[in-house]
């Protein structure tokens, strides 16, 4: 296979992966961030202790985390059809990607928020800050470097998940690797795909590290 033949395959596949991961990242943040905050706030020694609710949320998160992604993807097909109306194509796979990444990201958010010292939280309470103000003005800004680091890990994990989604009709670089690399023995294309994924992950990780470092004022 020549470069001229590979390029028209690689470019759209890369875009599909970017689309899947991009949308899934957006929805993961929108759902996972509040979930992570809830895990901290409702904790036994959180801002608003509600141990029963916290246990329930923790259980749901653990269920989500314990399912291998390929199993989860298949198991929630009915839900995907309900949300998107179809179960194939790039858009359809944003759903399982999000469902798979939300519990993962929520745990990382929880860990990052727990890193915030109890002394600053109590100082804010002593100043008469409401719970909402403490979450918005203390917990989230203080944890921001950790949140960015967690998001970077999540995005990298999503790229991995998206390759699996590719095998079930989601398109993207994973789909390319299976169809050409595995089924047609196009070794060169396989190698190029691998290198491309490596470069993308490296770049994202470096970007994430750089942003986290810029935000940290310790």
């Amino acid at each position, binding site marked *: 296979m020549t470069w001229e033949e590979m390029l028209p395959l690689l470019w759209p596949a890369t875009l599909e992966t970017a689309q899947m991961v991009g949308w899934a990242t957006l929805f993961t943040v929108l759902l996972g961030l509040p979930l992570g905050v809830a895990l901290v706030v409702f904790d036994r020694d959180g801002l608003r202790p509600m141990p029963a609710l916290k246990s329930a949320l923790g259980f749901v998160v653990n269920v989500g985390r314990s399912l291998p992604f390929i199993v989860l993807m298949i198991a929630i097909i009915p839900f995907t059809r309900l949300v998107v109306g179809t179960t194939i194509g790039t858009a359809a796979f944003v759903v399982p990607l999000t469902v798979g990444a939300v519990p993962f990201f929520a745990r990382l958010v929880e860990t990052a928020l727990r890193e915030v*010292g109890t*002394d*600053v939280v*109590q*100082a*804010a*309470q*002593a*100043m*008469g*800050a*409401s719970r909402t*103000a403490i979450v918005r*003005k*203390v917990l989230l*800004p*203080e944890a*921001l470097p950790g949140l960015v680091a967690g998001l970077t890990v999540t995005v990298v994990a999503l790229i991995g998940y998206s390759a699996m989604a590719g095998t079930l009709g989601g398109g993207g670089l994973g789909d390319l690797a299976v169809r050409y690399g595995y089924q047609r023995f196009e070794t060169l294309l396989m190698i190029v795909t691998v290198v491309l994924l490596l470069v993308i992950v490296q770049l994202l990780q470096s970007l994430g590290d750089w942003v986290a470092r810029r*935000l*940290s*004022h*310790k």
Partner: protein
Amino acid sequence: MIQAYGLRKQYGETVALDGVDLHVREGEIYGVLGQSGAGKSTLLRCVNLLERPTAGTVTVAGQDLTALSDAELNRARQRIGMIHQHFALLSSRTVAGNVAFPLEIMGMPRAERERRVAELLELVGLEGRGKDRPHQLSGGQKQRVGIARALAGNPSVLLSDEATSALDPATTQSILALLKRLNAELGLTILLITHEMNVVKSVCDSVAIMSRGRIEESGAIADLIKTPGSRLTREIFPLPEPAPAGSVTLTFTGDPTRPVVSEVVRKFDVDLNILGGSIEDLAGGSVGRLRITLEGADTGPALAYLRDSGLIVEEAAV
């Protein structure tokens, strides 16, 4: 200004506060002295209800805090400043941002906020450092930011939780001097907890000595010094305790330049031996303490003369 009655705090089986009463008068600096684990930190945190006491009431500036709803309590807390041992500054904000935090909570408009922040930074001697990050400051400067932040809402009361314990001696003195100045200039009532006698000696008007969840002794320092057998007096002065049998301990609170001791030796038939003594500068003035032994025919009248001269005379049993 601060009144607490019958405060009890229990964590499961552990009793942190065991029936504590506290009366802090307006405009005074009140120190709670005790070792770690004595319950002083719990006591301080009960004053702004960071810890809710198991029993008892807390009144600050005439308001019974234990009776307030969450929202009312938050409003009341905006009028009670607090500073912390490890400063508790937000690393995500600049110095100015940290001082502005309580003003944002109060809903003050931005322009007014900026003016107030500049004013507060000047008050604590940090003018021009507003754009710095907390990690760029020294410990003493961080505590000054903490103080500026605590004063943002014009509080009538400042609570200090071991605010100088993480600082070196020179910085401690400069922070204490600042607190003293704010107390004098703003009429700020300060309740501080500390394990350092030095803090009590340098700034406090009144003191409570805590141990195992109870207040063992409390009152104005000037009064406690004059009370024979007071624990505060024993702890302030570096004389061996208990006093050796037959010794006499004199406490001078009045004019320290009057040569009473030589007067006694000249007027009465006694020999006097000095075992030890020192003079300590307290917030209210100098106080001296001298341990002696007396021998001779006239020891009784000599001691009576010392008492009449305004000294506190404590005789150790023979």
